[in-house]
């Protein structure tokens, strides 16, 4: 198990390096630069700025310097927001984004798993159909539609919850964004849990456990649940990717001060270091979650470990 984990962690490094390299060059080869404005800067100021940030040097040298900075944990200064470093900006927004993302993930799992189990156990019944219909609809609805709908219904019409905004430590502001973000993930989890359980219920080891006279719930808890969770667990990686993407929209809709807006702003402003910082942050996050999902998978299913040993 440890060896498997070590190999998988080592596998992340080259992927990250490729990600950094590709995005570094793509961002810089795109037309326009950080100091292009409607009113052009005086040539001397511009030259000094470029000198300051090292933008007048050959690309490959800039790349090397960026990597050196990274090795020291330095993400560089933001080209547009002159008073801030990229790391500083991320430190400001990350707590909000992480709170949002983790509560959405928790919500999706806490609701999706029981819902899927319930649907599988009552297969073909009214509840099963209801869960499947809910999943199909939630998966088809993009969060930029559900978000404004929820804000309109619960914020503007019913006045139950704030329409938008954020106050640290006030969970009322978190509810609508977290629900919006969790909805499609919850639907996928419910679907996968249902499918996983249906596969397992018919497996021979579950039938023989029942035949040995074990009670329905005992079989469920000790025999069926673990293998049935496998599809849900392997979905956790893509789930995080979908949460990351969704959070861009949700943070815009509900005007949350998270990190999502930096990516859009940074790309629009050609703020190279900011875009790179965000790519690195979200890329690492996604890769780590994929890894975590694979490790849990290996723990649940010994065959996975065996294959790689």
């Amino acid at each position, binding site marked *: 198990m440890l060896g498997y984990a070590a190999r998988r962690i080592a596998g992340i490094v080259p*992927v990250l390096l*490729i*990600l950094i390299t590709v*995005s570094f060059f*793509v*961002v810089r080869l*795109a*037309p326009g630069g950080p100091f292009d404005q409607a009113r052009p800067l005086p040539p001397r100021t511009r030259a000094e700025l470029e000198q300051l940030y090292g933008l007048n040097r050959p690309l490959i040298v800039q790349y090397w310097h960026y990597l050196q900075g990274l090795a020291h944990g330095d993400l560089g200064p933001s080209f547009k927001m002159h008073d801030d470093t990229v790391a500083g900006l991320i430190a400001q927004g990350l707590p909000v984004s992480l709170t949002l993302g983790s509560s959405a993930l928790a919500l999706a799992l806490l609701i999706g798993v029981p819902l899927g189990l319930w649907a599988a156990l009552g297969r073909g019944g009214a509840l099963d159909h209801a869960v499947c219909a809910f999943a*199909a*609809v939630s*998966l*088809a*609805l*993009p969060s*930029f*539609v559900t*978000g*404004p*709908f929820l*804000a*309109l219904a619960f914020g*503007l019409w019913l006045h139950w919850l704030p329409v938008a905004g954020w106050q640290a430590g006030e969970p009322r502001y978190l509810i609508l964004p977290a629900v919006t973000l969790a909805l499609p993930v919850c639907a996928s989890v419910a679907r996968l849990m249902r499918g996983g359980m249906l596969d397992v219920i018919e497996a021979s080891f579950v039938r023989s456990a029942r035949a040995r006279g074990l009670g329905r719930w005992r079989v469920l808890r000790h025999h069926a649940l673990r293998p049935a969770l496998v599809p849900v667990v392997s979905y956790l*990686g893509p789930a995080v*990717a*979908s949460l*990351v*993407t969704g959070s*861009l*929209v949700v943070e*815009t*809709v509900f005007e949350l001060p998270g990190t999502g807006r930096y*990516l*859009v702003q940074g*790309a*629009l402003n050609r703020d190279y270091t900011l*875009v790179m910082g965000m*790519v690195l942050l*979200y*890329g690492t996050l*996604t*890769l780590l979650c*994929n890894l975590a999902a694979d490790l849990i998978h290996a723990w649940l299913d010994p065959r996975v470990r065996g294959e790689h040993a």
Partner: protein
Amino acid sequence: MRGSTLAYAVSMRSRRPGRRAALFAAALIVLLTLWAIVGPAASPYSPNGLDWHHLSAAPSLTDGHWLGTDPLGRDLYVRTLYGLRLSLLIGVLATGVSVLIGLAWGMVAGFAGGRVEAWMMRVVDILYSLPYLFIVLILATLFGRDSITLLLVAIAAVGWLTLARVVRAKTLSLKRREFVEAARAAGLTPAGIMMRHILPNLAGTVAVYATLMVPQMITSESFLSFLGLGVQEPRASLGSLVSEGAHEMLAAPWMLLVPASVLVALLLSFNLLGDALRDVLDPAAR
């Protein structure tokens, strides 16, 4: 191909009672498409014409603004239909491009085997593990803010991954079949075998995934337009209309509700149809 697939799905209806919904979805798609094409002609207003006497007017039958207007006095009925046109167009074209890439990539990988296959699928895995819309977003912002073509390329560039995986798996099983062996024995080149024997057998699967891809592409486009990075004013897509509506929802909720309902109807229909086609043509994929 599309036509005969649909006919097959229709013929299966009697055996699967739940498939009536899919037929309904297909009808709705056709209806929405036709409406997007001919619907604007029914209204006296143009998509970008300003009506100073009716700013943010509520839906009404008397003044000709059936679905209301926005704060600039532009008619929402016509704008929504123009948005639908653009969203459908981008969705279908981007799907076409994605299908071409995914099909070629998956087929070559599956057929070549060995190290080529391992590398090609490794590329897919890496791209797969990154947030998909996130890459689209970067591509679109950096290269395509004013051009629909570039927007299309950015959306299509990352949409082909699932199809590539599916096509590869199918190709792997197809290439072991007797008719492929017979073709090889008859001296056909690998390219010839792929074109004449593998490709036709992939058609059903590809049709299913193409149908499921259209709503994804429409969502991607709307997502970018919602963030202000896709279709730019004065042009409208469903995404940019939803975005405008979200800003005006206190004063003019119809600006949100009208384009959002059309978008939801469209996405749900495509998903329903795709799921039903998958049940019929590719039961193992469920």
